[in-house]
């Protein structure tokens, strides 16, 4: 049984979802790559920001 950490799970989820979003939502390879990277950064960035917010609220 696999037990990845919370962040590893998030990173894997973001990676796979971003690849699919990039390929399906844009027309040219260059725009696909750019959009995939954009989605990946948004996934990871929003999770980090929300995590800090929850941490500060819980204190």
């Amino acid at each position, binding site marked *: 049984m696999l037990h990845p950490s919370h962040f590893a*799970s998030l990173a894997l*989820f973001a990676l796979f979802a971003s*690849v*699919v979003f990039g390929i399906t939502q844009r027309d040219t390879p260059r725009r696909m790559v750019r959009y995939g990277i954009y989605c990946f950064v948004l996934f990871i960035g929003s999770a980090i920001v929300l995590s800090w917010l929850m941490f500060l609220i819980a204190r």
Partner: protein
Amino acid sequence: MTSEPKKNAAAENGFVYLPLIAGWLVPGAGHFLMRKWGRGALLAVSIVGMFVLGIAMQGKLYSSAHDVLDLLGLAGDLGNGLLFVLSRMMGLGADQVQVTTADYGTRFIVVSGLLNVISAVDAHNLRTGRKS
């Protein structure tokens, strides 16, 4: 517009829903049918990888719907096509979520199904000429 007749001609040959159905049953197959080898391979690796990781994390495979949330989970799981059917037949996945990673695994399986549906629709768009 010189490319329009070419697109329409391609769209009129054969069964137009074949890439959609193939892409749903086997992740990436719709794109392979449209000879988009690179895109198909990346989609297949991403969707199958996400599904396998979900199973490896002991994620739950929905088999019946007792309430609305179960129904939504089952709908997401069915998006995996043959992966879902084969996994059910082989008895993979957990019946009950008992640890946090299993909960993540359940989400991985549901989301891989939803991503597979998006991918199959994209293959259909390639087939109809709506996308190149």
